[in-house]
């Protein structure tokens, strides 16, 4: 079983935590998330033009790039993480251009060497899969696709073709950040997605608190939290790990126990 499949096969929902690579002491920050109970790490590749991100992640990308973070640095962070945490799945999230810059095969090989399990490419629509999908799948790296409130049943098969790892349900039609979708709509959509795929379904965008995360975990296989962690890095700098671990611990406890409480 792959690391990613394993993370969703523990009989409880998974907590997926996002941080931007190169924003602060990323190694220490990632270790804090794992110590706090993160089941999957999503590592953001900073990009100059993060079109689908709100102010928190835009600011993190700017901080990371201003600190000189290169693609080689992102890969080094991933490689070192894999050495420290052999079993924790690691997913790279970012925009297509930095991923395809040296060609899809170069990128897929580099990710294999770094021990990366999956890729989320925000602006690589399924229609443009050829730019990256085949190279990743050849190397056994999951191309994790996004579904949104605007992805209707007729379109869903196109999104699922070639998808791997888990299906990421973006719960709001909008950018990353603070708005949150109504629980009823999340539940309805997750049910709809699960009728068409056996992949685990994780829900993200706008999730910040243990209560929100628990409510989602009752209906979904995973919960993604990003901006709330990224803001802590921006706010606390070198002192961020303690804050990250505390938030991750609160979230993971809520997510992992979500179904027991309501069993």
């Amino acid at each position, binding site marked *: 079983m792959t690391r990613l499949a394993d993370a969703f096969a523990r009989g409880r929902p998974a907590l997926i935590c996002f941080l931007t690579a190169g924003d602060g002491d990323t190694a220490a920050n990632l270790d804090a998330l794992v110590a706090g109970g993160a089941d999957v790490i999503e590592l953001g590749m900073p*990009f*100059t*033009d*993060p*079109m*689908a*991100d*709100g102010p928190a992640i*835009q600011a993190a990308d*700017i901080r990371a*790039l201003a600190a000189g973070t*290169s*693609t080689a640095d992102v890969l080094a962070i991933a490689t070192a993480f894999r050495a420290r945490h052999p079993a924790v799945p690691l997913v790279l999230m970012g*925009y*297509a*251009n*930095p*991923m*395809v*810059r040296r060609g899809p095969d170069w990128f897929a090989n580099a990710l294999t060497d770094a021990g990366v399990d999956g890729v989320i490419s*925000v*602006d*690589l*629509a*399924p*229609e*443009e899969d050829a*730019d990256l999908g085949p190279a990743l799948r050849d190397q056994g790296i999951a191309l994790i*696709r*996004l*579904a*949104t*409130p*605007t*992805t*209707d049943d007729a*379109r869903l098969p196109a*999104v699922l073709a070639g998808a791997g790892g888990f299906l990421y349900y*973006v719960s*709001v*039609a*909008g*950018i990353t950040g603070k708005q949150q979708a109504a629980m009823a709509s999340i539940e309805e959509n997750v049910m709809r997605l699960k009728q068409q795929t056996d992949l685990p379904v994780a829900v993200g965008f706008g999730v910040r608190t243990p209560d929100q995360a628990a409510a989602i975990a009752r209906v979904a296989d995973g919960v993604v939290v990003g901006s709330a962690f990224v803001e802590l890095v921006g706010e606390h700098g070198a002192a961020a790990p303690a804050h990250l671990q505390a938030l991750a611990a609160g979230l993971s406890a809520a997510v992992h126990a979500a179904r027991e409480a309501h069993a």
Partner: protein
Amino acid sequence: MSSQPNSFRNQPDECGHFGQFGGRYVAETLMPLVLDLEREYRAAKADPRFQEQFDDLLEHYVGRPSPLYFAERLTDALRMDAPEGMGAEVWFKRDELNHTGAHKINNCVGQILLAIRMGKTRIIAETGAGQHGVATATVCARFGLPCTIFMGATDVARQQPNVFRMKLLGAEVVPVTSGAATLKDAMNEALRDWVANVHDTFYIIGTAAGPHPYPELVRDFQSVIGREAREQMLRRTGRLPDLLVAAIGGGSNAIGLFHPFLDDAEVEMLGVEAAGYGLDAKHAASLAGGAPGILHGNKTYLLQDEDGQITEGHSISAGLDYPGIGPEHAWLKEVGRVKYTAVTDQEALDAFQLLCRTEGIIPALEPAHAIAAIVYRAREMPRDQVILANLCGRGDKDIFTVAERLGVRM
């Protein structure tokens, strides 16, 4: 080029690809909308009533057809230092005489008719120089739709008259402070707004770039320039021009002029990018100094570093200050049908003044780049040859920038 296509005019393919360029690289939230837009555009194209409405507005609201003008004194001035027998005739397509002062309005009229067809009730747009913002605000006022214009804070500061124009027309102007606070950042912010408001909002993109079908539909709306010019030239001179010249920001005025001539093998074409401070310094020439990549919904030539991070361009012309270029130009460059060159800020400024004094026309800084390229090309061409350039905008908006660069206090 071993295998030339039968026609250069049947791009893109059904997936929006111009060769390896173009496509639909957008977040999933936008994909259904982009597919919808394509369906609606196909239906509109096949609907004679849509075409009639478009033509009627172009004639009576925009003021088309724009004149085709023989620039006799400019031609003479360039012949003065041309070798014996050289110095081609220079003609202009006068799109600076359009309502709102540039070619941008042609596209805005087409897109707002599409928005209305799709039942959208709110319009957004990005703008650099403010010309596309003014044109968008204009058609929104004309059709009574609310509109929000995203404009980099740097551009808001250097294009104050256009900011005020947009406000007079009832638009909300949102200054964008992310990145270098110029056109690409305004486009990012417009995309963020669009993702959050897909249910009621139509995004009027201002150049022949973005996700399919935008490059195609903007080209089609702007092709009125080339169709008119081709017919006017044939009627006036009985022949086609030998060389077409147009400035390139995202490439909409250039593709609008070029496209109807692409299968006229005897017509050469030259696109002129902004070389800013020089191609070895900061510039905005993505074909001359960039590499293929993915940004703002399409694959095309981009100014970027070895990691695929987008780099900031520079041009004295805010309308050319964009690190990308429409995908059809990227393809036309690769297949060799169109040649591309670049001229510096200084060369554009010199050409700007030359046109003012020889023809009594104050051009925008964007077409001043095209004129600068003509200064070099005309003297290499025999006197009986004809150059046709797109005078795609007037310079009222630029007089403050030019005064500053010339050291004149106003």
